[in-house]
């Protein structure tokens, strides 16, 4: 087990280097970021040279990359164009996005799995068809439509929530944005759980459990659900990374100053340091989430074990 974890952690190194290098090259291909710093007018050449030197943009790309990686290992992610250290930007953006992600994941787990179990056990009944239809609608409607619609109805028309999230972004304010962010994944979790439950319901061990005279609740939670959760856990695990990096639409609609917003600004202003820094952290989140999923397998099904 320990060796497995170490091996997985070591695997992160090449992925980490590859991903940062790719992002670094991609941002650099877009041209000279200093050109956009002076607005509609041309920067005067002396200041432009000076700025280029300050941000290390006068060096060849490979050298910029090496310097950057060297700094990253000492915890220095560089400076954004507005003079703020990127670590400071991360310090303000990541907690917000993590909170948003937690809300979204909770929705997925609580609503998604509950609906999945209910429909899985009542396959073909009106409840099942109803939920299937509902999830189909949720999947086919783009997030920004759901987001804007909820914002308009709950925020403006009925006044139940504030249409925008304050800089604090407390958990309470993130419930609606979290639901919007989770909506599509939630529908997938429901469908995955439903199929998995429906399939395992006919398996031998469930029949045995029922034959032993175990209470229905115990059969469902301990035997049926536990075995049906493996594909769902895989999905939710990979979704953590996707939600954190892909929250940009939701964050824009609800004015959440999270990772998506910072990345968007970084790309618009072609700020290599911001973009690479944030993507680096997101890559780590993806890798760790995947590792967690693999470890959870062993909890759910003791037959799956890593020597």
């Amino acid at each position: 087990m320990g060796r497995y974890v170490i091996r997985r952690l070591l695997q992160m190194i090449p992925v980490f280097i590859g991903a940062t290098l790719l992002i670094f090259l991609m941002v650099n291909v877009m041209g000279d970021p200093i050109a956009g710093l002076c607005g509609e007018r041309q920067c005067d050449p002396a200041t432009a040279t000076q700025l280029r030197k300050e941000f290390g943009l006068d060096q060849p790309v490979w050298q910029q990359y090496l310097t950057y990686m060297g700094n990253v290992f000492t915890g220095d992610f560089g400076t954004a164009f507005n003079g703020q250290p990127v670590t400071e930007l991360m310090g303000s953006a990541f907690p917000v996005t993590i909170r948003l992600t937690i809300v979204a994941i909770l929705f997925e787990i609580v609503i998604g799995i509950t609906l999945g179990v209910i429909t899985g056990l009542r396959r073909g009944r009106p409840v099942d068809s109803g939920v299937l239809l509902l999830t189909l609608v949720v999947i086919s409607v783009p997030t920004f439509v759901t987001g804007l619609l909820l914002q308009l109805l709950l925020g403006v028309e009925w006044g139940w929530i504030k249409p925008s999230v304050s800089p604090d972004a407390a958990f309470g304010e993130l419930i609606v944005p979290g639901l919007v962010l989770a909506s599509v994944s939630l529908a997938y979790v429901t469908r995955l759980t439903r199929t998995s439950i429906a399939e395992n319901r006919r398996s031998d061990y469930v029949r045995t459990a029922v034959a032993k005279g175990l209470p229905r609740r115990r059969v469902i939670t301990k035997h049926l659900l536990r075995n049906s959760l493996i594909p769902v856990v895989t999905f939710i695990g990979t979704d953590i990374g996707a939600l954190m990096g892909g929250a940009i639409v939701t964050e824009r609609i609800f004015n959440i100053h999270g990772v998506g917003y910072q990345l968007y600004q970084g790309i618009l202003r072609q700020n290599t340091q911001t973009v690479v820094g944030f993507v680096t952290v997101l890559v780590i989140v993806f890798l760790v989430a995947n590792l967690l999923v693999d470890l959870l397998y062993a909890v759910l099904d003791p037959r799956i074990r890593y020597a």
Partner: protein
Amino acid sequence: MRGATHARWAAAAAAVALAATACGGGGSNGGGGGGSGVVSSSWGDPQNPLEPANTNEVQGGKVLDMIFRGLKRYDAKTGAAQDMLAQKIDTSDSQNFTITVKSGWKFSNGEAVTAQSFVDAWNYGASLKNNQKNAYFFGYIDGYDKVHPDTGTQSADKLSGLKVTGTDTFTVKLNQKFSTFPDTLGYVAYAPLPKAFFDDHAAWLKKPVGNGPYSVDSYTKGSLMSLRKWDGYPGTDKAQNDGVDLKVYTDNNTAYTDLIAGNLDLVDDVPASQLKNVKSDLGGRYINTPAGIIQTLAFPFYDKNWDKSGSEKVRKGLSMAIDRDQITNTIFQKTRTPATDWTSPVLGKAGGFQDGLCGGSCTYNPTEAKKLIQEGGGLPGGQLKISYNADTGSHKEWVDAVCHSVNNAMGDDKACVGNPIGTFADFRNQITQHKMSGPFRAGWQMDYPLIQNFLQPLYYTNASSNDGKWSNKDFDKLVDRANAETDRAKAVSLFQQAEGVVRDNMAAIPLWYQNGSAGYSDRVSNVALNQFSVPVYNEIKVS
């Protein structure tokens, strides 16, 4: 089950770690609508650090306009430069100026504003090592080439043209005659700076200190700046409200929604998609007034195809092929006004604005347009490609409309196409590297309400924003003469003659003047935009 137990432990530990990081953040106060007399307003994240000589965009400029007062200030209604901290500015030759600063003014931290505060600030702004993006504003002052050489390192730290002659007086020597120089001093780059700025620069940037009607109460970068009325402000334009909370919005649509929901008092950038509803949503609480901004199509004169004899006919023809009225009405919902000269109506007649200067060349006339373009040798390369940046400002819509208009005039579906460029930075990049092969979008927001500012930086040979590299000896001569002229009215008329040269050559196609648009809640009143399309915050009253 040993393995499983281990795994469970590992998973639990990781989950705890994740949860712990989640709880680490937050904690700033902010949020909400502020106190009773506080105006909440939408804001964008400033691109550069907030220093007077380093701020070249509207969002940062907004804050500086609240916390700083310079020698002059532009009247919000007429745009005329009026004395603010300047007691008097004397000159006999348009080149040497003696400036007297009013005594009794203070920064909000208690320091006195003296002649030294200005000289220190200007020297800082001009010095190459400080990387100030507005350094070129000091380019007219003697010794600028030493402090800020085009290449290499600076050989002096201070501008030789600036001399402090007393607590409240200093002299400015320019390197050329520039009669309207005093009128430029209302620009924020010329603001005075307190000693605190130089003593602890990092702390100042965290919480800027100025001498304006507001002081910064708290600043959470990227999300909220709380400004409060400064009770010790000695000026006559004291704040009429208790303060302003500037909230950063990720999207101006969200800001607009917040305004409609009663969560926000002021939005100074109504999104284009909402212009249709704005009257029914806000009624009379919608402002749409001209600002000192003009949109043009510039040409790459470094490309031989665009700079041969007869091509001015092509440019004039293109100008005539554009149906400005229709585009401003349908796409911009009348938030733009078709341009008839190369300046802006905010200058007023006395300031040099000349309605209709462009004449027939800016009037829609498809048949004449086609004729002129053919006489001029046709479209270079057979097709017109209009470049624009696609990331912000919804430029695609109007570029497509302009092309549609040109195509109709030419009777050819493929005569004109838009050429989107991904980001603004890349767009600017290609412009500065002279990679444009056809006309490109050019927008000009004035720095100060002077006709000089609409002509010299854009069309003078090798000027800072002459992106198309247009060059004309007659134009340059007229500008030089205008700058040397001490009589203001004569100077303006010489600039207008220079503008005539721009017209005769169609150095750039004027498209439309841009309006500032804003909407506000029924909690506030007396809201207006100045010529820079920035709300006049200190005048806003909260009921």
